[in-house]
């Protein structure tokens, strides 16, 4: 069973003209638990769309989507929110921490409105990422690498099946980027599927598998040996790809 899986997924946006923009073109993509997959490709190739569709922030126009063995192709807004909280962790290029909250509170944000206090678990997670002495610091008092560690801790607060990272090293220097990628390796060892969309060759070096997305067409999206994933997708594109971000 894959942690997250797309089958024949197509994402079309209504373009400015008559032709819709095809951001994902009949994509097959699957990640096993504990696997670290890097998705590479030029700007505008549909990487962010892929991440949004995987992360239940956006729905595919066609095709099926499975999360942890459950079909999550078409869910209501509330169901998607619940599924995101339950099974998906996000790490963003810009960290996206809330400036008014401390590190612990940022980590506990996904559960902040639930009964029960998750701050102990949040503190544990932060300690694991070497931020045990920064628990009550606000984001403005943290360095870029520290912020990204807080973000990773936040993505793990609900023990997700999948961690989705959008250019996780994009705003970090090489050394810090490497240490963040090392954290991803630790995360995947706990059985979490990690998908990172990146331009950074450094990320490719840490990944178990690198897949390439070009103009919405994905190559090598499914682990080797999967029959369904072997089929070749005919490229049939008439419209340019949209802006990536």
């Amino acid at each position, binding site marked *: 069973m894959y942690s997250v899986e797309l089958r024949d997924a197509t994402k079309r946006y209504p373009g400015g003209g008559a032709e819709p923009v095809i951001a994902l073109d009949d994509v097959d993509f699957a990640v096993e638990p504990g696997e670290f997959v890097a998705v590479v490709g030029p700007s505008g190739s549909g990487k962010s769309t892929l991440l*949004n569709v995987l*992360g239940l*922030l*956006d729905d595919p126009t066609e095709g099926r989507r499975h999360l942890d063995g459950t079909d999550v192709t078409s869910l*209501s*807004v*509330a*169901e998607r*929110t*619940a*599924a*995101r*909280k*339950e099974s*998906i*962790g*996000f790490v*963003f290029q*810009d960290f*996206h921490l*809330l*400036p*008014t*909250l401390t590190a612990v509170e940022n980590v506990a*944000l*996904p559960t*902040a*409105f*639930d*009964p029960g206090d998750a701050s102990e678990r949040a503190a544990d997670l932060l300690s694991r990422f070497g931020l045990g002495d920064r628990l009550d610091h606000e984001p403005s008092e943290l360095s870029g690498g520290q912020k990204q560690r807080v973000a990773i801790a*936040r*993505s793990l607060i*609900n023990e997700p099946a999948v961690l989705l990272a959008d250019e996780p090293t994009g705003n970090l220097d090489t050394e810090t980027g490497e240490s963040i990628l090392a954290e991803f390796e630790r995360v995947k060892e706990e059985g979490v599927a990690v998908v990172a969309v990146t331009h950074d060759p450094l990320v490719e070096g840490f990944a178990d598998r690198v897949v390439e997305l070009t103009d919405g067409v994905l190559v090598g999206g499914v682990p080797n040996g999967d029959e369904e994933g072997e089929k070749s997708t005919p490229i049939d594109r008439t419209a340019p790809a949209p802006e990536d*971000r």
Partner: protein
Amino acid sequence: MSRTDPETRSGLGGRLRGWRPAVAMAARNLRRNRVRTALAVLGVCIGVLAVAALGIFGNVLALGAQDAIGDIGTQVVVSPNADAGVDSLSDADVADIRRAVGSPAVVPLYSDNAVVSGQSAQQFATVYGVEEPALAFEAAEGRLPERHRQGAIVGAGVAEELGVGAGDTVEIAGSQVRVVAVLVESQTFSPVAPDDAVFLPESAFSADGYGQALVVAESGEAARAAADDIRTEVNAREERVDLFELAAIVDEINDFFGLLSTFLLGLGAISLVVAGVSILNVMLMSTVERRQEIGVMRAVGVTRRDVLRVLLAEAGLIGAAGAAAGTLLTVLLVAGLVLLTAEVDVALALDPTNGRYLLLALGFGVGVGLVSGAYPAWKAANERPVEALRS
């Protein structure tokens, strides 16, 4: 979240628990831009001050007027209808009136005019003949007899003019009469004008009919009912009597002050609406600025409802803070007014009905916050996170 909503527990406690983290987060967000928050709070504060202060001023005016009008509303003056050829009220008429009104006391009066003299001064006054003065009047000095058999009861104005008190002697139409009581100065306007009158026993008059009859009721409503009864029963066949009824006038005066209060409240409400618009503006600006943050919250699994709660709590806190400050300022303002203005009675300012306006303004302040926060909150909570995250 139909599948895994952990907050479907019912009960107020559960619902309040859901709000607590939202309020805590809202408070921090408000602290982030203190100047903007303070200005929005100030707006509500002024609005609430306007509503509460104008409301209370209107109320104090109305209460003051009621005080001044006093209890004239409880009296009905019945006089013979000269147009129908009735010159005086006979004993039968008085009996009819008594039967018609039921419980309220009916005090018939003979009336005449005479020169009344004291030691050093004299005055032209109305002289009434009355048997049971205690039913309709109050004594400031001396005692009103149950049955008025001898002596004179002097109105406050006459007593002052002539410089006489209870126990003194006055001369009325040539005869010396001892003053048994002086009436309390009347607060009211009445055709009987007791201040400028002298009351003698009925035996002093040889007239064959009463000039007027006073109907004294317990309340304005009873007075109105009595007047209606007289109209339907005594005036059933012919218009024998004229009624002078102040209850209707009091009603109109009260209506006027009610209108004035509403008008003043309306003036105040305009400033509260302006305050609401400023909250709307602040909330729209801050949700636009925090679009990405809200998108992140939604992306990591915070529900639309919780985002809505945080933003509504922000607007509600602005409203509540402004309302509390405005209410406090109103209390200070009214206190200052009472201290500085001799005309405003402390009792009027402390009247419990004024509290209604304070509560009303307080409620309006919070309400304005919530109402003007609702649209920006709804808009932000319902934005698709994928759009919000796009920088």
